[in-house]
């Protein structure tokens, strides 16, 4: 409660003195454990701000709404550590300029909400490195451990089963801050690489393509699997890919806004001969 009040005041102040043109936060949703995004432009709107342990959605995707940042004014945004990482990735992929972003950092332990010190992504680099070394307990998913224990066939069957339920609504893509492309590869129909109807093969293609596109970029915010109407545990695939990328390339996504995207960069002295 105290954190929420403090942040309401801060947002009002920054809006009043013109430091930011807008703040993106949370407001009550349709049930007591759901939250909606809140776009605060005035002091009154700031009073609707809610900050508690149900504010789990990663809001950073709203920043890349076409035109939002084009006037070069600043925008404030409420973010948990994953959200800060996604800001860094978006900056590294030239989707936004970190100087335009004021971060209202927060996190919670149980139901206890606390503010994170800092305003710009750089202020959180120590925190992010710490997360890299000691990932929070929440990332230790029992289901993931179960999947890890399966053999290749069982694992394939497991995901085949899960993906067969996909209805190609693309809610996962819409919810993910990293899915900012103007046209997604699935929408490309010349040629039609990915089948658009929801049958097993096309579903598998779609979900695997998305997993590849997110590898080295996903921050495990969970927006995707919360958005999925048929409850496919999407985040787990991406979490697994993130581990592959850390193991294979020593790359933990989102540590800084200048970190080179792992799958786009290469080293001339790489011992593999694949490119040069």
């Amino acid at each position, binding site marked *: 409660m105290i954190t929420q009040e403090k942040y309401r005041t801060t947002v009002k102040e920054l809006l009043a003195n013109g430091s930011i043109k807008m703040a993106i936060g949370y407001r009550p949703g349709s049930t007591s454990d759901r939250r909606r995004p809140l776009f605060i432009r005035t002091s009154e709107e700031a009073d609707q701000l809610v900050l508690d342990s149900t504010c789990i959605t990663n809001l950073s995707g709203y920043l890349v709404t076409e035109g939002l940042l084009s006037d070069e004014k600043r925008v404030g945004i409420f973010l948990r550590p994953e959200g800060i990482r996604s800001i860094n990735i978006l900056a590294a992929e030239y989707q936004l300029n970190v100087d335009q972003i004021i971060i209202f950092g927060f996190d919670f332990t149980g139901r206890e909400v606390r503010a994170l010190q800092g305003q710009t992504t750089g202020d959180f680099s120590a925190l992010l490195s710490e997360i890299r070394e000691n990932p929070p307990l929440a990332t230790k998913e029992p289901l993931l451990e179960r999947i890890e224990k399966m053999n290749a066939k069982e694992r394939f069957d497991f995901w085949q089963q899960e993906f067969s339920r996909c209805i190609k609504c693309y809610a996962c893509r819409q919810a993910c801050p990293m899915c900012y492309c103007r046209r997604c590869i699935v929408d490309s129909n010349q040629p039609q*690489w990915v089948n658009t109807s929801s049958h097993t093969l096309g579903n598998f293609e779609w979900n695997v393509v998305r997993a590849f596109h997110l590898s080295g970029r996903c921050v495990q915010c969970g927006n995707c699997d919360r958005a999925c109407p048929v409850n496919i545990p999407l985040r787990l695939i991406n979490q697994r890919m993130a581990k592959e990328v850390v193991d294979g390339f020593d790359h933990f996504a989102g540590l800084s806004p200048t970190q080179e995207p792992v799958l786009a960069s290469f080293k001339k002295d790489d011992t593999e001969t694949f490119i040069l």
Partner: protein
Amino acid sequence: MAKIGVFICHCGENIAAKVDCTKLAAAMGEHPGVEVSVEYKYFCSDPGQESVKKAIRENNLTGIVIAACSPRMHEATFRKACAEAGLNPYLCEIANIREQCSWVHTDGDMATAKAADIVRSMVEKVKRNNILQPIEVPVTRRALVIGGGIAGLQAALDIANAGQEVVLVEREPSLGGHMAQLSETFPTLDCSQCIMTPRMVETAQHPNIRLLTYAEIESVDGYIGNFKVRVRMKARYVDMNACTGCGDCITKCPVKKISSEFDCGLGKRTAIYTPFAQSVPNMPVIDKASCIYFKNGKCKTCQKSCELNAINFEMQDEFIDLEIGAIVVATGFQVQNTALYGEYGYGKFPDVITGLQFERLASASGPTAGRILRPSDGKEPENVVFIQCAGSRDPSKGVRYCSKICCMYTAKHAMLYAHKVHDGKTHIFYMDIRAAGKGYDEFTRRAIEEDEASYVRGRVSKLWQENGKLMVRGVDTLLGKPVTVAADMVVLATAMVPQPNAKEFAKTIGIAYDEYGFYNEAHLKLRPVESSTAGVFLAGACQSPKDIPDSVAQASATASKVLALFSKEKLEREPVIAVNNEATCAGCWGCVLACPYNAIEKKDIRDRSGKLVKQVAYVNPGLCQGCGTCVSFCRSNSLDLAGFTEKQIFAEVMGL
């Protein structure tokens, strides 16, 4: 509406013996969009090409498929025929039904069915092909030759004598390479230095050649006709403008016991040195690792001795940036590290030496002034054993190939020894005597018949020391008996292997190499002097083991390739380049990083009032090499490769 022509070539019997061409032509004639489907014995022949042109004109074809040999053979031929008939050459596709079908199958029916699949898939592709125009790029008329051995010198001189500019980069302090180390050369026994040094001098004095010694290639960017090369000039600590090569500094240098690389460890040199007396340029360098001043800040004897004040301890490495049109790689070879051969006792017994060391002993300018004296006690050996294939043709040591020169130089060594030590005895252990080449077999015969070299066919299994002799145990496979020879000196004909840094160097330049590190030619038979990268040519032993005549011949061949390139003002390049869809590009710049040729730039898209709307990726057509890396990277599928668009490839796959 597509009107495709399908031309099925028999290639004599090559295709027709397996593939039923009549059946194939009939089947293709039924395929939607195919207007003409015919067969012929040799479409690449003059009448064959004429019939293709005629069919294009008479039927107003919108695309053609030539079902024949590999596109590497005749794609250019048929594209040209297309252009002559008024059809854009990029509307011609080759369906390879020879290498990829008739040659590799035994069952005729199945081969015919497969040929139909291959042709059909190309018909589906060509239906979707677009008109493309070749890209024109300017040519910088300046060649870079890397390596100043005999191959590099020959290439540089040939290009320079034809009136074009050359930059020659040699990493050692002097030109010369291995040939400068040799005594006399097979098959004529003329003195290596005597034929080599005039070339070195001519190169250094040539008005069209810029000589950069003690220099290394730092980076190579760009593409054929337009390379950008950065050269690192290693600090010599001697000002080349001031130094006259008097050598006072060398005489005064107190560090005199450094093992000489040029003499293969048989002689000594100082810390400030030239590799050999006839070095070109004849200006010393300071070997920083051995110099006392660089070790503890005291000495500078050389500086005091130099009247011209040419020595400068503060010198730093410098960089030179060059614009280059063509590159000749002539970086040569090294002899294999003999430490691998425990059984021959190299390194353990001082009188077991390599062939290259023998060259130094036999060389008039060498450490023994041309007398064959064994390293251990400086005595003249009375009995010398030569071991051929010490490394070559030995898969267990990683060299499966034949080094090609060792049979010849071993015969030469036996002769030189016989000429210098009249009552000396030689035994040569060999696997085969390979002496193909002009005057070569005569040469080895001479060693046997006139100079009484005793050839023992078999391998050496063991070598040990006994009563001051080197005991060499082997088998004489012709007699089927073991033999043991007591020798005073043993000479190993060690394998010719790539330079130690050959693979990394290939990556710097961007050329391909084989499993050993020898550089790959574009086509072993038909394009033996071109590397896999356009505008980069290969000369000498960096490509495969070679002797001097072969190295020189290849060097002259590269020169003619370079000159042909320089004979044009502009080059035409295949328009197979990446093209970006600016409407869908998300501007993530992943492709900018991924492109190995730095061909992608950021481009601003502005509205009419000049306001920045967004930034997208732009592929520079002059720089793009069409590798497709960006295409596979782009998540939004915005990039595509002209001539191999995803749509075309998809159709090709679906046509199977």
